């Protein structure tokens, strides 16, 4: 049985006004109660994918299709999309220090989001804010609401950020590197929190570069390289049996935390391509150890079983 997708992105391409393509074929979906990890290195377009779903890139031209709750977002009017933002879909950003307005209290900023979407009085909104902060495990939530961002620790700021994102009970929560700016012990706290949220039924899209984070808090994963999704599947499948040579190399490059210490870490030679020099064939072919002549044509996504897809000629018929 397969859950009805909450969000479905089909062949999303994103162009700069000068014609450079930042995303060149992103296809993925998120169902309610699922958590999709979008993994990739810097410049792979994982944050851009998230921002396009939110509609926060007005200056870029998007082609393809993004369907959210059965509505096509790319043809939707800005006014309609704005109603979705913050209420039906919400976003958590990497650095809660800069993501909050530094000059207003945390509480005021959460109140604002609540009152943008719900007809509540200031007083009622604040009561809800305090309740949300409490649910996120912020000690003394009433006091915390009156604090300014710089007066809270990184972990508490990120909790407040999540409280704000959840204030209107969104169906989809997008988290862009939510723990990268945090220390490991605090990161663990936030990951546990995110996992609880998904278990409560929200669809989560988690953008990260850390395979460990994906393993801990996601059910599914999509691997992005140079603006293209190269592999998708459940976390268990992809992490234990990566199919795409890029996913394999990426996993191998992580230094192990137990077992014997390798003499050298396996590396990927070269650098990821910049958008204007993206190969017309398989985007990974210039760095791929298994490159073949037929890599010169961009491979389609090949279905490799239930929800498992890979874009590589090695698995062609």
């Amino acid at each position, binding site marked *: 049985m397969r859950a009805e997708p909450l969000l479905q992105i089909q062949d999303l391409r994103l162009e700069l006004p000068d014609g450079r393509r930042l995303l060149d074929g992103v296809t993925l979906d998120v169902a309610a109660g699922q958590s999709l990890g979008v993994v990739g290195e810097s410049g792979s377009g994982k944050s851009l994918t998230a921002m396009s779903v939110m509609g926060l890139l007005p200056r870029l031209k998007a082609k393809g299709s993004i369907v959210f709750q059965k509505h096509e977002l790319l043809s939707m009017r800005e006014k309609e999309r704005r109603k979705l933002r913050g209420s039906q879909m919400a976003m958590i950003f990497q650095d809660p220090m800069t993501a909050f307005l530094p000059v207003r209290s945390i509480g005021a900023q959460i109140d604002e989001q609540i009152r943008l979407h719900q007809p509540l009085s200031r007083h009622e909104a604040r009561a809800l804010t305090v309740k949300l902060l409490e649910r996120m495990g912020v000690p003394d939530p009433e006091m915390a609401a009156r604090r300014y961002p710089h007066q809270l620790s990184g972990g508490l700021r990120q909790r407040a950020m999540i409280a704000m994102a959840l204030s209107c009970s969104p169906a989809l929560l997008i988290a862009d590197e939510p723990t990268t700016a945090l220390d490991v012990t605090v990161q663990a706290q936030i990951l546990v929190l995110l996992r609880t949220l998904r278990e409560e039924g929200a669809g989560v899209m988690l953008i990260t570069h850390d*395979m460990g984070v994906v393993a801990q808090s996601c059910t599914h994963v999509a691997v992005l390289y140079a603006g293209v999704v190269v592999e998708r599947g459940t976390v268990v499948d992809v992490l234990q049996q990566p199919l795409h040579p890029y996913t394999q190399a990426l996993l191998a490059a992580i230094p192990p935390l137990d077992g014997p210490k390798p003499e050298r870490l396996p590396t990927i030679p070269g650098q990821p391509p910049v958008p204007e020099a993206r190969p017309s064939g398989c985007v990974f072919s210039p760095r791929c150890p298994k490159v073949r002549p037929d890599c010169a044509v961009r491979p389609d996504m090949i279905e490799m079983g239930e929800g498992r897809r890979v874009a590589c000629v090695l698995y062609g018929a």
Partner: protein
Amino acid sequence: MSILLEARSVEKHYRLGGGRVLQAVAGVSLQVRRGEALALVGESGCGKSTLGRTLIGLGAPTSGEVLFDGARISGLSDRSLRPYRARMQMVFQDSSASFNPRRTVGEALAEPLKIHRRTGIVERVHELLDQVGMSRSVLKRYPHEFSGGQRQRLNIARALALGPELLVADEPVSALDVSVQAQIVNLFGDLRSQLGVACVFISHDLAVVRQMADRIAVMYLGGIVEQGDGLAVLGAPAHPYTKALLDAVPRPDRPLPPPLAGDVPSPVNPPSGCRFHTRCPIAQARCAQERPELRGITGGREVACHYPLVS
């Protein structure tokens, strides 16, 4: 192997306004032997970067002393420190900020050689590029033309220019992507085996540290809580904090154990007794009163805990 660098009860305090004092480093003693790689690990605010800078003579310790090759270097004037500067170098995390954007790579690499009046500069620069795996064609280019990984290679080349015996690297790979990070980690390994340079790595990433260092020292709120052979410490942590830190790293193979509660306390107002007792899952009454000293346990390791997990 002889001892190259030694810290004896180093403390570093910063005066804040209103009579408050921030204890960044609170009594650290450690040794680095020739050719050895030591890693300082801990979360933000544990004092690892401050300690690193103090070790290399950037800022004098409030008390205690630092010895390099048997000679005391802490508290020396800039002038008397200069001969040591060539023998120890620092590599920073942000490779883009440590290059002058208006100077070519060639100029940047030659600069330390010129300052120290070395001869054969051109040959030496070429040799450095070979060592860090960059081609000679990069000399005429500017820092912004390189990717983060390439810039970090150049950064390391510059630090190696004067042939130092010690490199202190502050989060040298944490700004890099995993695949590039692996390249730089390997590069440090190669340099150590080729040049025999001793390294102090400062990092928050246990997996990276395990790969790069022989010994690790885990820091919490300005003090070392545990040190010893890297594989041994991470294989079976003796201090509850080391264990918590290790458990908190998200891994593919097992679910996260319940994380430590709360945040790191402020170094302005550190807890009494063992500084970790406020978050420690196995703390006893004694831990709040008595500060545990580092003491030896099996395998040449040391731990500062009244109730260590390994004895």
